[in-house]
């Protein structure tokens, strides 16, 4: 990791009960986290609930954050995505809600150069490796990540047998790992 992570500093301050740091953390990260929750839940009201529950969880468990285990943003994203997946278990999603913002679209993995330039080098590496996958594998991985689709839902969406979808995902993940490790050299 290069340099101190300002979000990590804010989480550590939150762990000491610093309300101002917590408010700043929310301000900086909630638009991205909300977008991820909307993408999975497809309903703004559910996404709002998940965001709220996630930040309360974060407030209570900030002292468990360990910067040695990964980035602050990744830790927060994991809390929100897990919250959204759990919410889906409580209430299966209604398909095709009219309340569907643009954020729910699967982002293009090869965006325009300006947007690409704004990404971290680690994210650029990940997207380059994704672009090296078969179209089917890439699509399956992105649908699973951005929309939280299960194997079964994905098979229905892509009109493809369940076993095929599962193997796209598995093979895609294995290739992704090989590609990323090949780029940086195995640790």
């Amino acid at each position, binding site marked *: 990791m290069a340099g101190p992570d300002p979000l990590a500093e804010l989480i*550590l301050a939150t*762990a*000491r*009960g*610093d*309300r101002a740091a917590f*408010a700043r953390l*929310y301000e900086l990260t*909630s*638009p*991205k986290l*909300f*977008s*991820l929750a*909307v993408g999975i839940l497809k309903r703004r009201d559910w*996404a*709002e609930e998940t965001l*709220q529950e996630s*930040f*309360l969880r974060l*407030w*209570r468990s900030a*002292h468990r954050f360990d910067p040695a*285990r*990964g*980035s602050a*943003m*990744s830790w927060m*994203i*994991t809390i929100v*995505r897990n919250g959204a*997946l759990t919410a889906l*278990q409580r209430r299966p999603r209604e398909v095709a809600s009219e309340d569907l913002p643009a*954020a729910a679209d699967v*982002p*293009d*993995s090869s*965006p325009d150069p300006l*947007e690409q330039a704004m*990404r*971290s080098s*680690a*994210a650029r590496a*990940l997207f380059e490796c994704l672009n090296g996958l078969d179209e089917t594998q890439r699509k399956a*991985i*992105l649908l*699973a*990540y*951005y929309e*939280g*689709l*299960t*194997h079964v839902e994905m098979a229905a969406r892509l009109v493809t047998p369940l076993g095929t979808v599962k193997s796209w*995902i*598995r093979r895609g*993940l*294995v290739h*992704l*790992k090989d590609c*990323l490790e090949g780029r940086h050299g195995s640790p």
Partner: protein
Amino acid sequence: MARPDPEKRQLIAAEYALGTLRGAARRRFEKLRADDAVYCHDADEWENRLNLLAEAVPEVMPPDSVWQRIEQSIDMSTVRSWWDSPGFWRGVSAVSVAAAAALLALFIQTRPVPPPAPVIPSQVAVLNDQQQHPAWIIRSDFTGHVVSVESLRPQDQPAGTSYELWLIPSTKGQPPVSLGLIAGSGDKQIALNPGQFDTLRNAAAMAVSLEPTGGSPTGLPTGPVLYQGALIGGST
């Protein structure tokens, strides 16, 4: 249980991080991850990788009402909060009661020469951390006016924080009463004022919360409770 071979193991972690591992399988993996450093490392690695995908999603502003509800919940939780919550009282579990009871028996047996002043039964608490490991023994002396704090293991204390010791009354809804700050290591004697003395007589538990340097600014716990244990002996 033996772990599957590394490739298979890492694939499970990858599907967990991606979100396609669901239902009971997801919960099983979460348990493995909590208990086994190898699974934990696999999952950390895949989460750090895949969560970079979030950089490609556009930001969507949540309505202000979400933050307002978060703030309200935190305000409520610091006013009413953990000392009334079932979670806290589960933490003050049979384990800490048994540990305190054993200590109390030992303490009474080994007490030297009969005390001159009116004897108040001693009270003892063993404060455990969140993994139920004992960290402190707290006990009152026979006068009931002095409480000694004995550190069992030095506790890491984040910079800019203080540990504050609290008495939790047995009456539901009664707020905790501070016994002051304690250091992460070393022993301490606390002379009780009359209010603390009275509270100690009908307290059911003790807890240590993490507070800003110098202690809680509000007089009530504001930070997370890190150590807790049942208080036994005395009139209870």
